[in-house]
């Protein structure tokens, strides 16, 4: 990954919950960079701070100290309205589930962020995304009428429609069966390869992480290592080493991966 420009980064990021002796540090001064145009996975045992890191990088949570960068923008200096605009125009989101507004059709959900900005979607780009994600026939349907895999693909289309600088994915395969999960990971991978999209994904699942270009490992709120071009076995081994005695063992993909 050397030589790639950084799309986002964190400098000595601290996030403490509570105050006084009972305070808990979810992030304990972590510094890291997210390379542009690459697929980065963030992994770590429960309580390692990976969700908090994602929330801080996405401007959804305010760090206690330290800096969060998106390109040249320091998120810490922005007010709520500016942060909202940054999320709307420069970021995309894919969550574990509950990505879609239940009363809007798939098509309306895809257009949501662009429409909130008061713009019209780029028709050709939208058509390509819909075609590529294979949801063309489902655009008029409500989320409740779609399968879990289709719902996640709609969420990916929404995340990419605004051509964001970075896409944050939080356990995107967590609620999917193995086949759908693998399909979705393939699509995310293709976004990076074909469109040069930057993707950051938090996951529990070594199989999911193995699709990425690099895995950032976290423990106790600090960076604990990096795996480039990871394989599932390498990821498992690294996690096992991190957890020490609390070895995670082999988990089938798509199960037990809930946050």
């Amino acid at each position, binding site marked *: 990954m050397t030589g790639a420009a950084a799309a986002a980064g964190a400098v000595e990021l601290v996030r403490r919950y509570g105050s006084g002796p009972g305070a808990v540090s979810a992030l304990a001064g972590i510094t890291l960079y997210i390379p542009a145009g690459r697929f980065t996975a963030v992994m770590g045992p429960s309580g390692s701070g990976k969700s908090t890191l994602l929330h801080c990088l996405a401007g959804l949570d305010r760090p206690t100290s330290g800096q969060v960068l998106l390109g040249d923008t320091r998120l810490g200096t922005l007010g709520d309205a500016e942060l909202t605009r940054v999320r709307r125009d420069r970021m995309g989101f894919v969550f574990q589930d509950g990505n879609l*507004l239940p*009363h809007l059709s798939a098509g309306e959900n895809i257009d*949501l962020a662009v429409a*909130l900005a008061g713009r019209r979607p780029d028709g050709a780009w939208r058509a390509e995304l819909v075609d590529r994600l294979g949801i063309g026939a489902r655009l008029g349907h409500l989320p409740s009428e779609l399968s879990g895999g289709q719902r996640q693909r709609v969420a990916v289309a929404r995340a990419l429609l605004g051509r964001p600088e970075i896409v944050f994915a939080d356990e995107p395969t967590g609620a999917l069966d193995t086949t759908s999960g693998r399909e979705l990971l393939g699509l995310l991978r293709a976004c990076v390869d074909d469109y040069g999209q930057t993707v950051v994904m938090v996951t529990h699942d070594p199989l999911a992480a193995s699709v990425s270009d690099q895995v950032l490992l976290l423990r106790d709120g600090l960076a604990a290592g990096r795996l480039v071009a990871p394989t599932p076995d390498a990821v498992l081994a690294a996690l096992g080493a991190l957890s020490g005695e609390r070895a995670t063992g082999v988990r089938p993909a798509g199960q037990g991966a809930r946050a």
Partner: protein
Amino acid sequence: MSLLNPATRAAVAGIRRRPRQLLLTGLAVLVATAFAAGAVLLTGTLRAALTEDAVHTPAGASHVVSVRSTDADADSAAGTLAQRLRAVPGVTDVAPGFSGVVPVAAGTTSGDWLVSSDPMTGPLSVLPAPEQGRPAGPGEVLVGAATAERTGLVPGDSVRLGGESMRVAGVVGLPFESLDSLVLTTQDALALDGTLYASRIDVAGDADTAALGAAAGGERVRTAAEQRDAEIAEASASVLAVLAGLSVFVGLALVASAVVVGSTFRIVLARRSRDLALLRCVGASRGQVTRSVLAEAALTGLVAGVFGTAAAVGAGHAGIAVARMSGVDAPALAVQPLWLAGCVLLAVLTTVLAALPPARAAGRVPPVVALGAADVTEARAPRARTRLPAAAVLAVLAAGTAGIGVTLGEQLAGLAVIALSGLLLFAALVVTGPFLISAAATLLRPVADRSGPLRLAVANASRLSRRTAAMTTVLALGVGLTAALLVAVAGASDDARASIDRAYPADAVILPVWQGDDAARGAAAQQLAVTLDAEPQLQAYAAGTEVRVDAVPGADPRAVREAVAGVIGDAGSVTWTADVREQMESGLSVARTIGAGLIGTTVVVAVVGVAVTLALSVGERTREIALLRTFGLTRAGSRRAVAAEAGLAGAVGAVVGVLLGAVYGLLALRAMGMDGGTPPVGQLVGLAAVVTVVSVAASVAPMRRAGRVEPAHGVVG
């Protein structure tokens, strides 16, 4: 649709897909709007009916001269004034309009009748053709149709008034006949000038207004058209006064519905917090989220307003149809589209204003909630630091205004100030409601510990104190108004009874007529007392200028009345204490009924609030109830927990309402210069009990829903 921002579009789409929830949210506003529209329809119909009857100016009149003097011998008296007017060039006819309430004897009864005059023929007669007999001539009278029915008088009978016997020439339909009524000729009325008074003189012909003005001296001269306009305006003004009075109660119902709607929006939005956070996450600004909630509120208000108004119009038509079928001469329903549109607008405004705080809170939902990181409900505790001082200020203001109201010495103004004080205290109650609920829950905890469902109910009530408080404050408002009404009516009854006992120390009091000075009246009273006392059933004595009559113990009341009527005839006006009492009691019972009807709407809104809040709460707590079912809560137990929550809200609302209402009822009495006496404790306890039971009854639907929750609901998704 594409004009709306996507957040709003999502909210509107949600409403389209779940219209039941919108109706549930807007139900309280619907009831209040139906009441508002009902008030508008009632007054509109009343205005149409009244203006029809309000015109007393005959079609043939050219001018109307008003008469202020009541002195029969003065230069400005109706008789002399009429003669001068007749002499004005162009005048073809004049007719002074006399009226008065005077003693009339008919057969074996005597009483005070409404007597008026009419020329009977010519352009200035306003009477319709007699239903029976013929128009009256000199020495004759026409009897009102309802009066004829009540007294059994028929053409050919005779009545005595003003010391003369007069023949009944016919029976005629009169617009208002609450009192026994008869009409005599203008000439005969002139002879009774001093007993009857003329307030106006109708003039026919083509005389010049200025010339009439000169002849009339200082009296006001209007053309017939001007006079008709003035008469209509006067009737409209009285209708507007009715509308103003009703609008106070409409306002109270709207305030109650606003509290309910505010609370239901809070619940509904708490359930949707994840969707709202998702919107924030993908780039909706706080303003966009807030506006989407306000748009939803406006739509809710619009639908509730339209349905409520339509319900009122439907009920109005139905009511009139029923009245007509049962033979009542009901006027047509006057539908004023502009006013009804105003009612719908009022519903929209109320809902939007009520939803404003929850909408702003919705805008503040942190976007990170969308990732399931934080579980946000509206359980956030209300801030004591801002709320308690505000409540203290309101309470002090309420106490201050109450003090001013009691010491003002001006009845109506005092009452208004007391009402203002009540509103201030209600505001304090709204602000402190959540803390009161927590306190009540703490008090109840030792009792509740003995029953699982009850403990659950108390825990829920205090955990969601804001929501429970909304239910109880609205209930307290409705119950408080009712309690104040009960206390005030009871106090006013005591006061009226006492003053009747003072003014009428005997079974009947008779005032002789026709005597100029007190000495002559006294003499007449003495004479009448002697004659009356000679009757075997009667004991009579003169007291000043009046005669007091008591029945001999055991005498037949009917025979007593006939004996008095036989002696008095039209020589005096007889007032029976029993009649006065009966009139007072029926008047108060009418006041109580009307008051209960007006306040009832607020109570209905409050009960709707309880039902809606519980329905939404149970929907929200399905998972929690299921989990408890897994741990061994029985089906009946989950039902009982909901019922207990309703009962708790109902009981707190009822007790607070009864206490505050009773205090304000007594304050209102004090402001009107009455001491109040003992409050009707039995009625108040009954009220509190009924409201608590009704609250529990309102929870039947959510109770059944809670009972249907299966343990599996907690485990699956």
